[in-house]
């Protein structure tokens, strides 16, 4: 149609389905209906199946006595405990191994990530070999290796290997003395707390002084000294004593001391070593992501190497490192569920395994288990969003 076509033109009539808004609504209704009917179909089937098997549903089973053993638990546990308590034991065991695993994996991962960037050929090659080997072998296989091939082939209790400091390692895990501090020892803890507060105050003061007078203060060495000397002094003066309860070979097993079962150790080794290889790559990428021009600019301003790293490079690298690092932490936590395969009583093992088998409440048990992981990851991503909003570089 051109402008030459004078005369009255009819208002253009749109076929209703060609209106993008209406089309969008129709699409959504169709998809929604399909989804709802699919879910309804599943629910219907499930209800029919459950009825046929004479099974009931509901969460009332949580308050019933579980009546099974859990080999390793931080919370008090007996056969008389309820399924709800079993649930909590599972969560604490998951969190315990995840927490220690995260600490170990972070230290190991940062060390190896930095080693990969070393100008020393041997060190960087060793780090590369570590990363390329570990991350290309399934975690479950590594767990089996640690558990079946290493820890389970340890000698029987009678022939335990003796480690330094009255510790032992055998088929049943590692045994080491339990420290039993006396009442006086509380003062040492107080001393340590005071030292930590002191160091924080010292750092603030040093910064203020630098800004006011331009004088540097050796913060790191002083802090180290304060942290070591103050608690040690308190210890000496208060005369606090720490008794040790060493493991002693009894008739069947060691008595006293602390026992770390092989399931826990294998899971901890596997998770830390596996995740460290991914963290190492994250760290390497983060440091490499900082433009070389930043180093040069800092150099040409006369900043010394330590200051250069602390004030210019690390703050920028951390922005890149932290988000993937958190997702590695989350992966480690999710991967701790593989402990089920070697008998570590974490959440999946206790609840989606034993409890599910005993009660037959499959849907409830699996849903609760998934809910825990869901909450953990929602929490993490909430913290991450807050962090990202705080550190995002402001751009035009």
């Amino acid at each position, binding site marked *: 149609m051109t402008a030459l076509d004078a005369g009255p033109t009819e208002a253009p009539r749109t076929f209703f389905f060609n209106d993008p808004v209406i089309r*969008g609504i129709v*699409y*959504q209704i169709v*998809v*929604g209906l399909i*989804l709802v009917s699919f879910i309804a179909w*599943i629910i219907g*089937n*499930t209800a*029919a*199946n*459950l009825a*046929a098997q004479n099974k009931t549903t509901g969460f009332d089973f949580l308050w019933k006595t579980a009546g099974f053993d859990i080999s390793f638990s931080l919370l008090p546990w007996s056969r008389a405990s309820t399924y709800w308590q079993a649930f909590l034991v599972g969560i604490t065991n998951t969190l315990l191994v995840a927490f220690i695993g995260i600490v170990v994996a972070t230290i190991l991962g940062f060390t190896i990530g930095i080693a990969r960037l*070393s*100008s*020393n*050929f*041997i*060190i960087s090659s*060793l780090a590369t070999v570590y990363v*390329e*080997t570990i*991350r*290309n*072998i*399934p*975690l*479950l*296989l590594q767990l*089996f*290796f640690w558990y*079946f*091939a290493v820890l389970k*082939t340890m000698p029987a209790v009678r022939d335990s290997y003796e480690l330094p400091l009255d510790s032992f390692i055998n088929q049943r895990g590692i045994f080491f003395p339990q420290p039993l501090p006396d009442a006086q020892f509380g003062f040492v803890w107080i001393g340590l707390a005071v030292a930590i507060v002191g160091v924080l105050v010292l750092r603030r003061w040093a910064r203020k002084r630098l800004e006011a007078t331009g004088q540097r203060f050796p913060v790191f060495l002083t802090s180290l000294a304060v942290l070591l000397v103050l608690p040690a002094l308190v210890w000496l003066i208060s005369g606090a004593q720490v008794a040790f309860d060493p493991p002693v070979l009894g008739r069947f097993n060691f008595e006293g001391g602390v026992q770390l079962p092989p399931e826990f150790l294998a899971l901890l080794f596997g998770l830390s070593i596996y995740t460290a290889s991914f963290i190492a790559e994250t760290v390497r990428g983060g440091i490499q992501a900082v433009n070389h021009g930043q180093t040069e600019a800092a150099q040409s301003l006369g900043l010394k190497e330590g200051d250069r790293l602390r004030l210019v490079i690390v703050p920028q690298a951390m922005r890149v490192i932290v988000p993937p690092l958190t997702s590695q932490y*989350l992966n480690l936590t*999710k*991967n701790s*569920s*593989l402990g*089920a*395969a070697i008998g570590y009583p974490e959440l*999946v093992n206790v609840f*989606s395994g034993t409890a*599910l088998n005993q009660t037959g409440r*499959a*849907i409830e048990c*699996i849903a609760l*288990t*998934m809910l825990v*992981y*869901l909450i*953990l*990851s*929602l929490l993490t991503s909430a913290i991450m969003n807050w962090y990202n909003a705080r550190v995002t570089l402001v751009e035009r």
Partner: protein
Amino acid sequence: MTDTGYVRSELVAAKPAPNPTSGAVVWAKKNLFATPMDALLTAFGVLFLLWVVPPFFNFVLGHAVGPMGTVEECRAITAGACWAYVYNEMEFFIYGFYDIPQLWRPNIVFALGALLFVPLLIPKLPFKRINALLFLFVYPVVAYFLLAGGVFGLSEMPTEKWGGLLVTLIISVVGITLAFPLGIVLALGRQSTLPVIKTICVTFIELIRSVPLITILFMASIMLPLFMPQGMTVDKLLRALVGVTLFTSAYLAEVVRGGLQAIPRGQYEAAASLGLGYWQRMYFIILPQALKHVIPGIVNSFIALFKDTSLVYIVGMKDLLEAVKTKNDSALEWQSANTATTGYLFAAIVFWAFCFSMSRYSMFMERRLNTGHKR
């Protein structure tokens, strides 16, 4: 010409650097002994290698019992790895309980797969489209009937008998192939402006990504049969495939989303200004570019999936790792101190070889894509 002026009359020819810049000594000085600290680290590294390498070498090769060895040799106190065990159980590790006279069938499947898959990986080779169609649509059908049998006079072979590396490969390849289209749809849905569709996709993706694969496999194993109409049984392999596919599709969706976001706005606008509809825009303009961008990410997802197949023991399938574990625990005739270690070592080498070559391939593609982008 004033007194400030200067003109060089003769050019200075290039001459070699005063100190040699190459050669073993220079290299060592620069890479091993640049500073006292470096020298210390080097010494430390060498000591570590001396501590680790010889025992490892002795275990794997030096004192190992070769494929033709006997269990008595493996039981000797000084013996290293027991390769005879792996050699004798190899068929189980690769095929599971598959009937031995029928092993030619999986072998043909392996060969066909390699024949179709390898050319797909080499960017230079032609006929990519036909090749991909054959691999994605024809090959699975052929492979299924060859393996399962029941037609053309082939004896029936239930999936319970499949196992070992065969199952590992089937689950990972079928898993990624099915997860791929699902992942693309989820990624597009997540980018959609329609709130209902977006919510559904986001919920699905985030829900799956926040729970461990092992719980999804539990669900597939225990709840999937409950979800089906009464009397309908779900094959174990199928359960594993459903779980693995749903899991992988959520991760692939995020990979694809990254690619979609990397496409400049101008591409969307140009496509729209040509009058292309939504699906045309996506199919002809956006997805080809976005997917090319994320090939490395897709390969990495495949590596993750390949490693994750080791978890299908949950639904009762015997993949490579589970096959090795079964024999480690049950092959009494091969029992020795190093049998289990050797078995796991073998599985580790197989997994490693697959994953490492794929990750190298992913790096190769990444470099290729980067240079292609700059031009």
